[in-house]
Each structure stands twice: as structure tokens, then as C-alpha cells.
């Protein structure tokens, strides 16, 4: 079952790539991520949750993915807990779901969810202490087996990693519309610029949305700017590079995934490279992350962020579903109506929890781009709860995603709507975030907070929202811990190394050689 649109944006149908997920063979295209290839192949269930083994699907289209964590590669290169949304597809990619037994569809451990009223957060597992002899032989092995997600490789890492240094006048973090414009302005002013982006395709939201910039299509504007930057000779464009930390005196840490998009690094090529970038100024154009809405069972496969639905349609031509309900509490979510209609997705309903959404948005649902589609049902002042077709865990395990039902709770009662996908876009109401903690940005999106670091020249926020931002950087005058420099200080983000094997390896070598 393939769910691929003919009008694919950034994927190349002429270059099919074979890959396996849980041993089954699928075909994706060059330019796909693992997540988009799975969606295009109709795979909705990709993992199990940590504790109750609830079925999990793909929620987002970027690095903010919380659900679709998979085990990548095999043997000595096996890497656990990799976000499927950030893996660039290559020919022969091998991925497996994790935390399930015996299989992803039929996971016996999902029995745990039946006992969820007992196994609450903070449950004391030594409650299983009787009879005493059972603890070591039965309970503890079982509990240990149930805990954790992926498995690390047992063999030594066969790849090499390296360290590199770079210097520039302006470091631009993020190659979306803001980052590209900032890099363009800096280059025109004669500065040496380094432009980093964690994605393998620069453009940020321009690749995921149908946007226009000064009358030009977003993608072609980005291509023109990138061509200008490359021609200037003063810009280093670094795709697949994540800037993870700000250190003293304008030093930035960045991880470049040099060969992670290849089956194995070629001879003499490192797998990853740790950059220490020294920049006079930095522009933090890291973009924003869409907020999900909290509602009942919103972790089930089939529920996806509205912006991610648009991304999979526009960039990858992958259809997240045939029939979809949209649940939003802000104007941004309504953008999905037009993109879904363009892609031929039937909108079962548009549910806006606000008392009075703008009339022009409501009118838009009646005039879909494709006339063959019926107008979507529409409800305001409504809430949503998702549920699987059956409450039994076994049934849920077998048919997790195919018929998520979105229930519309109105004053009159509950309506049930069968659909294969719920697309949700949220923004915090007054009760969710204290007013003293403003998180500006577009409605329904939060900006990532920059990594903390004592820096006399913190990165600048480039947009008009800047005065309202609280980047949570310590002021230069505030007292900080005085460390003894003789004990080689490890950069904080390096020693934390958030799950990346390479970063961990780097940090140990830094502390020993620095």
C-alpha cells in the first residue's frame, strides 16, 4: 500500500531506495526521512511506549519527535532510540522497532496498560517482595526486561570521529527563512559566515509549507539565496550540523553528522565531527516547535501535529491518511485544511475549541481546492478525545491506528467520527503557562530556548518578537560558580552528551587531552 502523491516536493522518484523496518522490505525515495518513507508505505505503528507499551506512531516531522524512536543499523553500528523523523534514508537502511515482545503488532508487554491504575508514576516496584525468593529470580528480571527502550551495540564502535575548529564573523544557527535572510544580509555586509542547519536540506519550514516570500515560492527563494551565498565565497554552509551549546567568549559547540546518511562511513571519513566554532556574533534562527494539544489518548498512532501533516504532504508527498480530522485552537492549524484538500485528503471534521474562530477560516473549509471532496464538518467550543476501536489491549495492539475515532464532545453530547488521522495544533491557554513566562512566536508554536551558557555576547534573536523574549541566559553581572581552572572544566552540554554515542566519546577525550 503506497500513499505517495505525484506532486512530491523534495523527493526524487527516479531514485528509489530500499529499506527494512522490523525485517519487512519497503521502498522509499532519495530525499526521504525514515518517517516519511514509513508514512508513504502506510506504516503507522512504529513503536511502543516506555512503560505501558502503548502503541506509538509518528507525531512530528522534525527533531522534536517524542514517539517514533527506532533502533538503527545492526551489529557494532546498532544505535538505539534514534528519531525516525531525523534519519535520512539510504539504500539498505535497517531499522527495528524497540521495546516490544514478541512483535510490534502483538506485544505481550502491553498487558501493563491494563494495570495502569496500579503502576502509576512513582510506583514502588519493590512492592513485589513476597515471597522473598521470587524477587531475584522472577520479579527483578521481569521488571528489568520491561524497562528501557532500545539496546546498545555490544561490540566496540568501528567508526572514527574527529574534532575540528572554525572561525567566522557571524554564525547563523538554522537555515530556515530567517537564517537564510540573516546570512544573506551578513554576507552582503562583507562578513565571513557559517550557516548551520540540522536538516540535510536547508530551508526549514520553506521545505515543509507552501509559503511565498516577496511573491516568489519559498523553495525557489531559498534556492536563490543559497546560490548567492555559495557564489560569495565567504559562506560555509553546514547541513546535518546541530549547534548544541554556547560557551565563553562566543565559542559554540556543533555536531556534524558527516556519514550518518551513508550505510557506513567510507575509508578515511569520520562518522561525526565535533566542531568548536568561534564567532564574533551569532544569530539564533532555530525556528519554532509546534505545540500539541492535550486530549484523551492523544499518544495513539494516527495523531499527528498539524504542521507535520503539511510537511509530509508538501516536502515528501507522503499522505499521512485518507480521511482526517483537524483539531485546533489557533489560526495556524487551519492552514492544514488547504494543504489536505490539495492532496486529496478527505477532511472528516474541523474542530476548533475557540468560541468564535475567524469567519474567513471557517468559510475556507466549504471551498476545498478539490471539488470532489465534501465540505468538512465543523464544530467550535469542542474538545476531542481519541480512542482505538476497542478498549481491550489485545485488540488495540492488533489494530492500533487504522480506525482512530475522534469523539466530538459538544454540549449536546458526544459524536464519534471514524477517521484514520487526527491532526492537532495547540497553543497554551491561560491555565497552561504562567503569564510571567512568555513564549512568543506564532500561535501554536514555541521557540526552543537556547542552550544555557555564560557568554558575554549571547546569540541574538533575529525577529521583531525579540524584545519580548526571555532567553534565560545568565546576565554577565550575575554571580556564577567559580570553578578551579586547574581541574579542566568540561563543557556542560558536552559531558551531558544526550544519548549520542559520538558526543559521549568526544567528551571523554576532551577531558583527558584538554
Amino acid at each position, binding site marked *: 500500500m503506497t500513499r505517495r502523491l505525484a506532486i512530491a516536493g523534495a523527493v526524487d522518484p527516479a531514485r528509489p531506495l530500499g529499506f527494512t523496518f522490523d525485517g519487512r522490505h519497503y521502498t522509499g525515495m532519495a530525499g526521504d526521512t525514515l518517517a516519511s518513507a514509513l508514512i508513504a508505505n502506510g506504516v503507522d505503528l512504529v513503536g511502543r511506549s516506555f512503560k505501558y507499551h502503548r502503541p506509538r506512531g509518528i507525531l512530528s516531522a522534525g527533531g522534536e519527535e517524542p514517539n517514533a524512536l527506532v533502533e538503527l543499523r545492526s551489529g557494532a553500528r546498532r544505535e538505539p532510540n534514534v528519531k525516525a523523523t531525523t534519519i535520512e534514508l539510504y539504500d539498505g537502511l535497517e531499522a527495528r522497532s524497540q521495546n516490544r515482545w514478541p512483535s510490534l503488532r502483538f506485544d505481550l508487554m502491553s498487558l501493563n496498560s491494563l494495570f495502569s491504575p496500579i503502576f502509576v508514576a512513582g510506583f514502588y516496584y519493590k512492592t513485589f517482595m513476597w515471597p522473598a525468593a521470587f524477587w531475584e529470580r522472577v520479579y527483578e528480571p521481569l521488571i528489568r526486561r520491561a524497562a528501557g527502550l532500545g539496546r546498545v551495540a555490544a561490540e566496540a564502535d568501528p567508526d572514527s570521529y574527529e574534532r575540528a*575548529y572554525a572561525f567566522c564573523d557571524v554564525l547563523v544557527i538554522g537555515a530556515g527563512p530567517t537564517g537564510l535572510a540573516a546570512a544573506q544580509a551578513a554576507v552582503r555586509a562583507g562578513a565571513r559566515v557559517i550557516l548551520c542547519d540540522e536538516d540535510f536540506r536547508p530551508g526549514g519550514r520553506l521545505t515543509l509549507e507552501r509559503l511565498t516570500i516577496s511573491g516568489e515560492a519559498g523553495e525557489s527563494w531559498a534556492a536563490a539565496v543559497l546560490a548567492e551565498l555559495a557564489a560569495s565565497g565567504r559562506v560555509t554552509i553546514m547541513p546535518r550540523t546541530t549547534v548544541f551549546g554556547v*560557551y*565563553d*567568549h*562566543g*565559542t559554540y559547540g556543533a555536531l556534524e553528522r558527516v556519514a550518518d546518511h551513508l550505510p557506513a562511513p567510507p575509508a578515511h571519513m569520520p562518522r561525526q565531527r565535533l566542531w*568548536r566554532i*568561534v564567532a564574533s556574533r551569532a544569530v539564533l534562527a532555530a525556528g519554532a516547535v509546534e505545540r500539541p494539544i492535550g486530549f484523551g489518548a492523544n499518544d495513539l498512532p494516527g495523531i499527528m501535529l498539524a504542521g507535520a501533516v503539511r510537511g509530509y504532504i508538501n516536502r515528501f508527498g507522503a499522505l499521512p491518511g485518507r480521511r482526517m480530522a483537524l483539531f485546533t485552537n489557533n489560526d495556524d492549524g487551519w492552514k492544514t485544511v488547504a494543504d489536505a484538500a490539495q492532496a486529496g485528503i478527505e477532511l472528516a471534521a474541523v474542530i476548533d475549541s475557540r468560541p468564535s474562530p475567524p469567519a474567513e477560516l471557517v468559510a475556507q473549509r466549504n471551498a476545498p481546492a478539490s471539488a470532489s471532496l465534501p465540505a468538512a464538518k465543523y464544530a467550535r467550543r469542542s474538545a476531542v478525545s481519541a480512542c482505538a476501536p476497542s478498549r481491550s489491549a489485545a485488540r488495540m495492539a492488533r489494530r492500533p491506528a487504522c480506525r482512530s475515532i475522534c469523539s466530538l464532545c459538544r454540549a449536546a453530547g458526544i459524536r464519534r467520527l471514524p477517521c484514520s488521522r487526527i491532526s492537532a495544533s495547540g497553543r497554551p491557554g491561560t491555565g497552561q503557562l504562567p503569564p510571567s513566562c512568555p513564549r512568543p512566536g506564532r500561535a501554536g508554536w514555541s521557540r526552543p530556548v537556547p542552550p544555557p551558557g*555564560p557568554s*558575554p555576547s549571547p546569540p541574538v534573536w533575529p525577529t521583531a518578537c525579540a524584545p519580548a523574549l526571555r532567553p534565560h541566559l545568565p546576565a*554577565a*553581572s*550575575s*554571580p*556564577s560558580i*567559580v570553578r578551579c*581552572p*586547574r581541574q579542566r572544566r568540561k563543557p556542560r552540554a558536552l559531558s551531558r552528551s544526550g544519548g549520542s554515542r559520538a558526543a559521549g566519546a568526544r567528551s571523554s577525550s576532551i577531558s583527558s587531552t*584538554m
Partner: protein
Amino acid sequence: MRIPCPFCGERDAQEFAYLGDATVERPDGDAPDALRAFHAYVYLRANPAGLHREYWHHVGGCRSWLVVTRDTRSHAVTAAELAGRKP
């Protein structure tokens, strides 16, 4: 952290080795209160929150000894001069 070496320009702190407090001075051994003065010279160190003068050795560069004035709160380096020259 970056330290502006008078010979090499601004270099990363990784190239330097830290010696310690540059504000203490070896007392006169013949002075009557020499014992007390030496105790202070060897053991007592101020731990200021603010500007501090300290010795750094440019091991990975010109190998000169520097006195660096650094704000211990923000790591802002305000001066770096050759050691051995009285301010």
C-alpha cells in the same frame, strides 16, 4: 574561553595552562614576622567574585607567562600582559 596573548593574539584557553593567583608576592624571609607572612603566602588565597589577576602559561603557543585579568563571574578577560613586569 579565549585569552588575548600579547604575542599570538586571541587564542583558545585550551592552549594555556593555569598557574594560579598573580596577586600574592613572596615575602621577605628576614622580616621579623616572616613566619606569618609565609603562611599567608603559601596557604591563604582570596576567592573574589569579580576581577582577578592570575598567571597563565601559553604552553601550546609562544610559551610565555602571562598575567591575565579575568572576571571570575563572567570569564570576561579585560587584560593580558607579560608576567614579570610590575603593574
